[in-house]
């Protein structure tokens, strides 16, 4: 059976290491915070200006001055710090953040990612995504393997405007885990339970390495 959104988040959480500073994107990446492994201490960065993001507040305790990058109300922890947007992106662009987990519309076989616009249809903007993929030490993507029409989102080359080139080290989809090796090629490193390599082949346009 293919992985659910929570399964993908749980698998992505296995990539967190003790002491990491981590930025989580919107959607499935946000769920990763629910599955941080026992004994692994990570500090979550929110690019609107906070390190040490805490859980959502209790009912009635929301503070309009305290939100995450997804504009949701959150809380602080004892370790938290606040800073301005220039300092926030100094952390990101300057390589001080260890891991970024992002959603994507498309990923290509050479590690390009597109996740910020569909020309003529959807205009939302890149927010901090271009800075994250340019500066964070390791970037991984969680996404559905195919779109609603059933077409592969893991492509030879992205058709949508890029967010960044050659910047994605790992892709986790509902079908499995795809990791880039030393040569820069993605290979199938794990399959979701019950998923076959044939199914992955049928749903993947990218030229990847099959075991």
């Amino acid at each position, binding site marked *: 059976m293919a992985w659910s959104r929570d399964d993908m988040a749980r698998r992505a959480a296995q990539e967190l290491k003790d002491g990491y500073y981590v930025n989580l994107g919107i959607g499935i990446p946000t769920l990763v915070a629910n599955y941080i492994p026992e004994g692994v201490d990570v500090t979550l960065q929110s*690019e*609107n200006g906070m390190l040490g993001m805490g859980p959502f507040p209790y009912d009635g305790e929301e503070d309009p*001055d305290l939100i995450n990058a997804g504009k949701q109300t959150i809380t602080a922890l004892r370790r938290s710090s606040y800073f301005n947007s220039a300092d926030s992106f100094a952390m990101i662009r300057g390589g001080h953040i260890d891991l970024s987990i992002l959603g994507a519309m498309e990923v290509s076989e050479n590690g390009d990612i597109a996740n910020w616009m569909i020309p*003529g249809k959807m205009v*939302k903007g890149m927010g901090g*995504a271009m800075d994250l993929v340019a500066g964070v030490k390791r970037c991984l993507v969680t996404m559905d393997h195919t779109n609603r029409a059933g077409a592969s989102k893991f492509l030879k080359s992205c058709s949508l405007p*890029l967010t960044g080139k050659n910047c994605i080290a790992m892709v986790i989809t509902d079908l499995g885990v795809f990791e880039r090796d030393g040569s820069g090629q993605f290979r199938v490193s794990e399959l979701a339970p019950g998923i076959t390599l044939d199914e992955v082949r049928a749903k993947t346009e990218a030229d990847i390495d099959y075991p």
Partner: protein
Amino acid sequence: MSKKIYENAAHALEGLTFDGMSVMAGGFGLCGIPENLIAALRDSGAQNITAIFNNAGVDGFGLGLLLETRQIKKMVSSYVGENKEFERQYLAGELELEFNPQGTMAERIRAGGAGIPGFYTKTGVGTVIADGKPTREFDGETYIMETGLTCDVALVKAWRGDAQGNLQFKDTARNFNPMMATAGEITIVEVDELVEVGSFNPNFIHTPGVFVQRIIQAKCEKRIEKVTTRGPRPIEGDA
């Protein structure tokens, strides 16, 4: 009485608004936006504004107010996803839009305010953001040149301020506000609390008063875009 303190938002904008002006306003989503100054800018009737805002607000609130009245000619932003009127005007070709990666936008404003006309960054290399921009190699890696940003009037929201213009910001309501305060030809600030000069510990001032020309005390509605909670607080001794 300090010459920096003004009675209200309309008063603080007097003599500063004109057609074709450029305006920065702080905030991330609806958090930390100078909502009273934005409403006063709308009421001033200034047209063809170049608006340098990270987001477009939501329909009917924040920067959305200026979109509804079509006072904005061009937006410089990083993310505009929460405003349908914005998307409609843009797709219909009624509005110019310049997307900046969020970190590039923050740094452009920081640079502009610091007298730095341009800088190199790796953000956006290989994307449409790099189109038409000079590039340069440093240690074998390609960077694109971005320019500093300044504006005619910067509208800033702070938590506390004094008559000297010294400011403190609260939590994530800080965001773009401190950089924008440095980048305005004139910077106007609205604060939740106007405090006596001398009540700040000088070690904990976020923005020194030199960057601020006008300041008002204002009551903010502080609308929340996405109220998200984890449920009721457990009753003590219950668990």
